[in-house]
Each structure stands twice: as C-alpha cells, then as structure tokens.
C-alpha cells in the first residue's frame, strides 16, 4: 500500500522531470543530473543522521569508492551502465560494513572524527597507487546515449534521465525503508538505546545496517558522478565534499527525504547562480571567485536562523503540513550526544 503510493508519487515526479529535461536547455539537463547525484548521496546520509542518529563526515569517501568501482569495472571489464550502478553501490556497501562495524562502537564527536579520517585518507590512495587508480589524473569513464534515441540526441539529456530516474528509485526505496519495521527500529535506537535494547532490538546490528544503507547510497551517487562527469579523480572527493553532504542534509532538514532534495538544490544552484551574477557584474576576478563561497555561507546562516529544522521543516511549519511536534528536530542533535541519562529524553516520550 505504502509502496504503491510512493511509486505513484515517483511516477509523477518522473513525468515532471521528463517535461523539464526536454523543455529546458541542455545545460539545465546537466544540472538536473548533478542535482540527482547529490539527492542520492544526501538522502542516504539523512537516513543515517536523521533516523539512526549517527553522524558521518566520511560519505565523500564512499562516493569515491563507488566512483572508482564504476571507472575500473568499465575500463577493465567493460560492464554496461545498468550493471555498474548496482555493482558500485554493493562495493561501497561492503566498505560500509567495515566502517559501520567500527562506528557502532563510537558516538558523537568520536564517530565524527573516525569518519572524517576516512574522508581525508581514502582519496590519497589514488595518488599512492597511480598504476591502478591513475593518480591525480584519475580514470576516464565513457558513456553514450543509446543509438535508438538518434545521433542528434543530446547526451546531457540522456544523463539527466539516467541520474534522475535512479534518484527517484532510491527515494522510493528509502521512503519505504524509513516507514518499515527497520526505519522504526532505527528511530527507537536513536531516541534511547537502552530502551531499544530492552525492547529486544539488536542495537549494534541496526546501527551497522544504517551505515551500510548510507554507504550504498553514497557509492551509487559516486557511480552516477563518474558517469555524468565522464571521469573519476581524487580532486573530486576532498573533505569539502563530505562536509557539503552533511551541510545539504542539515539545510534540507535532517531525516527528511524531501529535505535531501532541498539541500541538493541549494548546494548545486546557489553557487552557480551567484557566480553568474558576480561575473556578469564585472567584479574583479578575485572578488568574483570568492563571492559564491561567501554567498553560500550567508545562505546557510540564513536558513539555519529562519528554519532551524531545515528547509523542509520550515516549509512544514509554514504550510502547517504536519505539526512540528514539541520534540522538534533540534533534539536530533542532542540525540547525537549519547550516554546521557534517559531522563534528558523524556520529553520525547518512550517508543
């Protein structure tokens, strides 16, 4: 029943995106593909942070794993696109098992630190083993629109379809997962580990599972990034990327999949838009180059001041869609601080 509703919604969204992709310019198609990558990565992260209450500053590294998996599988084994996406997600998920197993023992700042380490260290493997990973230059990925669409069909439109379609499938799957027994168990663990354990939930297992899901999403996003930018190189997976993903999740609204879309839109479109304005007003290059960074910061501060629950939370409050309970998402941050007496959480009620 839920599945049908989500699938129906995704179908409507697919039609909207299709109309957009054919009516807008090819560069907008490219941006749709770009946004879709961030949607998948941030959706996975928002499930991890918002639902299971764990933080990861290392999802950029999982993206790198997925992206390199795609490039290497294509270069050496010649796998087709439809096989590359799930394979890359699976490989990143395996890495997620390892990291998740370690992460399940850590909380709060320690977990953040450990995952940050991953984001810093992993991309440098590419320069350490240039024979396999191509060093700084990376590996190229080739992609072409299917011949059936005709020779004149713009490649960027095809990529927009592929990426947006994949993103919608991921959103439907995550939406169902979040409303399933697993999703509810994650929230139970997030809100009170002790209570969840007493209720018979496998706390460590659930925490690891959340990491796996998040890593798989990041890996898939990395694969999509490799395909639409037709290359993989370590310069694309700096710590800044991991931080941008967390930023997108927070700004969109933690735990909300629609919020993942808002976050992605902000991350992709705000810097591009401000850059256009800055260069078209003839500002000096050093000023113009730094304005997007500054404007991005201003947007972040403004959103956090106006909508402490993220954009989605703000919209909900504005339209009265769903009463933001007294337990508002701000408590989600406190849920990251663990090992506190359960009484601190009592206003959230017990599960």
């Amino acid at each position, binding site marked *: 029943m839920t599945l049908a509703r989500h699938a129906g919604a995704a179908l409507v969204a697919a039609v909207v995106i299709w109309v957009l992709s054919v009516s807008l310019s090819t560069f907008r198609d490219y941006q749709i593909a770009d946004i879709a990558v961030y949607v998948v990565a941030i959706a996975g992260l928002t499930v991890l942070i918002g639902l299971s209450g764990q933080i990861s500053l290392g999802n950029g590294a999982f993206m790198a794993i997925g992206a390199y998996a795609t490039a290497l599988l294509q270069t050496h084994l010649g796998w087709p696109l439809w096989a590359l996406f799930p394979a890359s997600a699976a490989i990143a998920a395996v890495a997620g098992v390892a990291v998740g197993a370690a992460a399940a023992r850590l909380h709060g700042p320690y977990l953040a630190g450990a995952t940050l380490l991953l984001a810093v260290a992993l991309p440098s493997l590419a320069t350490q083993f240039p024979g396999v990973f191509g*060093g700084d230059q990376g590996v190229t990925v080739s992609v072409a629109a299917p011949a059936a669409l005709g020779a004149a069909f713009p490649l960027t439109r095809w990529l927009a379809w592929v990426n947006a379609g994949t993103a919608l499938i991921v959103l439907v799957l995550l939406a169902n997962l979040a409303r399933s027994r697993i999703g509810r168990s994650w929230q139970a663990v997030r809100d009170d580990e002790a209570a969840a354990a007493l209720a018979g939930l496998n706390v460590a297992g659930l925490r690891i599972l959340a990491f796996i899901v998040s890593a798989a999403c990041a890996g898939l996003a990395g694969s999509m990034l490799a395909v639409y930018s037709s290359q993989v190189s370590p310069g694309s997976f700096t710590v800044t990327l991991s931080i941008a993903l967390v930023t997108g999740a927070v700004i969109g609204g933690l*735990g909300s999949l629609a919020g993942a879309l808002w976050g992605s839109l902000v991350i992709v479109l705000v810097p591009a838009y401000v850059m256009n304005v800055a260069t078209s007003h003839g500002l000096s290059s050093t000023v113009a180059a730094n304005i997007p960074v500054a404007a991005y910061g201003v947007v972040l501060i403004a959103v956090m001041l106006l909508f402490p629950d993220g954009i989605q939370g703000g919209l909900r409050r504005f339209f009265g869609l769903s009463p933001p309970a007294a337990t508002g998402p701000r408590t989600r941050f406190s849920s990251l601080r663990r090992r506190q007496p359960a009484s601190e959480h009592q206003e959230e009620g017990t599960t």
Partner: protein
Amino acid sequence: MNRTHRVRTPAIVAAAAAMAMIAAGCGGSSSSSSSGAATASAPGITATQILIGSHQPLTGPAAPGYSEIAPAANAYFQYVNHHGGIYGRKIKYTYLDDGYDPSKTVTDVHQLVLQDNVYAIFNGLGTPTHLAAVSFLNSSKVPDVFVASGCDCWNDPSKYPETFGWQLDYIREGKILGAYIKQHFAGKKIGYFYQNDEFGQDGVKGLDDEIPSAQVVSRQTYVPTNVNVGPAVAALKASGAQVVVSFAIPAFNALFKLTGLKLGFNPTLVASNVGTDPITLGGLLEAFAKQGGAKVNGNQLTQGIITDGYLPTLGATGNSWIALFKKVHDTYDAKAPFDGNVLYGEAVGYAFVQAMMKAGKNPTRADLVSAINAGLPQGPAVAPYAYSSSDHSGITGAYIGMINNGAIVQQGPVYTTDATPAGAVTAYTGSEQAAPATGMP
C-alpha cells in the same frame, strides 16, 4: 511518533516540481547568438563580440600565483579591444573558478559551452582538471586552444583534433635540462626529485633521454598532498647526489631547499621553470622558514638555481615584448605584481589573438582550428611553435637560465628539440621576433 510521517509522499512530488521552477528561473537562458546579423559566423561570435571561456583555479590549493594568469590574459584582451579589436570585434573572456577540482571543471565547461555558448575554450588550467573536460570539448567540436599545462597529452590530434597545447611541454623541457646537465656535469652523481604525476613523469622521461642512466644515483618522488619531503631528501643525500634535478611546484622546491639545509645537504639544484619563478620561490622560502621559527633570506637561497625559460626573462627591460607586456600590465592589471604568471597570461593571450587574426574575418569554429594547424608566427616565445595538422604541441624550445639575486639570467643560446627520445637538442639559429609597434599581431 510524528517522526514516522517525516517522509511524506506528496513532498517528493512537490519538491520535484519546485526543482523545476528553480532550475527554470535561475539563469534566464541566454539569448541564442546565432540569430540575425550576417557576421555571426559561429556560436559565441556576433557582429561585435567574440565570447571565449575558461576554467581557472581562482580559489583553492592551486590559486596562489596561478589565479593571476586569467586576469593577465584578459588585460591583454582589453588592450586589443581598445585598439580596434579583432576585425572590429571585442573579445569577451569569461573564466570560471574550478578550485582545481576536476568535477567542478566538468560543470564549468558544460556551462560555458551549453549555456553561455562560448566560441572556444581558451587556456583551461591544469592537467587533471583539463583532462576531465577534454573529451567533452572534442566530441562537441569546440576549439580547445592553448591549454595551460605542459602535459604531452594535449598533443594527440587524431584523438583530440580540437585541442592544442601552448607552453613548452615537460618532455621537451626535461630533454633541454638533461642535455645541459650531460654537458656541464659529466661524471657527477645526479639525483631526481619530482612530482609523482604526469608533470614529473614526463619531465623525467625527457631527462632520461639525455642523461646517461649510470649517472643517476637516486630517484625520489613526492605527492603534492604530503608536505613531508624529509625521507626523499635524506635518500638523495645518502645516495651522494652532487646535482639534483627537480620537477616540482614552487612550494616543494622551497621544502626541498629548507629540508636540505636542515640535513646539511646542499647539491646544485637544476629545476623545471614551473617551480622557479624567483619571486614566488623566494617568498615561499621565507614564509616556510618563518613557520618553523627560522629566518632565511629568500634571494640568498635561490641564488645559483639552474632553470629554463621559454618566454623572455622579466629582467630584460630592453626586450620589446617585456616592454609591451609591462605597458599593458600597468594600464589594465596594475594591481597584480608583474611576475612570471602575469607574463605567461599576457603572452598566451597574444597567441590567441594571433590565431583569431589568422582564422579570418568571419570564422567558424573549424576555421580557428585550421588556422592553428597551418602554424602560428613565433610571437613572444623564444622558440617557434610546433603547430601543424599532425602536431598540436606548442613552444618547442627554451634557454637555460640561472637565478641571480632574485632574477633569472639567461645563460647561452635557446635550444629546441622535439618530444621523441631520438630527437636531438640543438641550439636555435633563428632569431627572436620583435614585438610589433602597435602591440597587436
């Protein structure tokens, strides 16, 4: 349990629809430039304007120094625009920041080609960054001229017919430095210190073509992300190297010098011109030493470093090119220091104007490519260009220089060579050209 309702079905639809509106609203797709006027001969070219684009590291790790290049090229374009333009058209140069991140480069180039409709991509900076863009540009048939990187990879006309290098490539540079070492340091023990990527590896390829392998006692590499060069320098010292050849960026030449100082290792340093702009290098030496609580004199430490150059030396005030570019710099780009990066930017801007003049009054994109394929006059470079339909590498030679009191001083003649192992390094007998009095090609 409100929280379980956070993931809402209508929200997905609403959000997708909103994405539509935002995407549509935020750019007001620029007018198509191919309409009307009889002289709008190609995308980006109107009756009055030539629009070109580039990706540059204006922020991020590669920004110091390199961010001066695009404004300097633009300064030269302003000069051209104020002196009649190219067949009456003014050049508009849009360069976007990629922060030296290849995926950002891909986005920038898509925006420039698909949205801004540029005529050509000019002087895109960086090997890893531009490699990410090169196949898209070639499949879109967009001229990709004068890439700001000495990688040999731009010279591949069968695979990348639209792409042209410009500066002396690292293989040629390695051969010219190698030939000098072979001649002047015969019998000495040679050590290599190089960046472990296309830049360093191409350079070493050229060095190995010239230096007898028995003379090379140690080969040490670094990666730009790891500033600990201690083990590499110690290994070079242990090998007893008397001459060290460096293919390194300025920061790592500075680290090499300072680490050597600490270890009591002071070999003769021969270094690629990529890392030896004396102003940049001296400043870095003083800054790094200060961080470590020491005080050094930058000019003293750079004294005697042997390097090479493919543009006139900045100190040659009598040179007509230096006079021209200094004048343009003072008028249009006065805020930047007149250093090697600015000279580079103005010189490559000059080369682009040369190519556009040759491409004709109402050029298509293909006209620009065929114009360069037919060869370009030498211009500000000290040696001729290699351009032909089968060779897309740029400047073919350089002189050897030595740093003296913070400035590079030319030593001996200009040498030219090719990028093949067999090609000889020979003194260039042709003369350098003088800058035209108008400052326009």
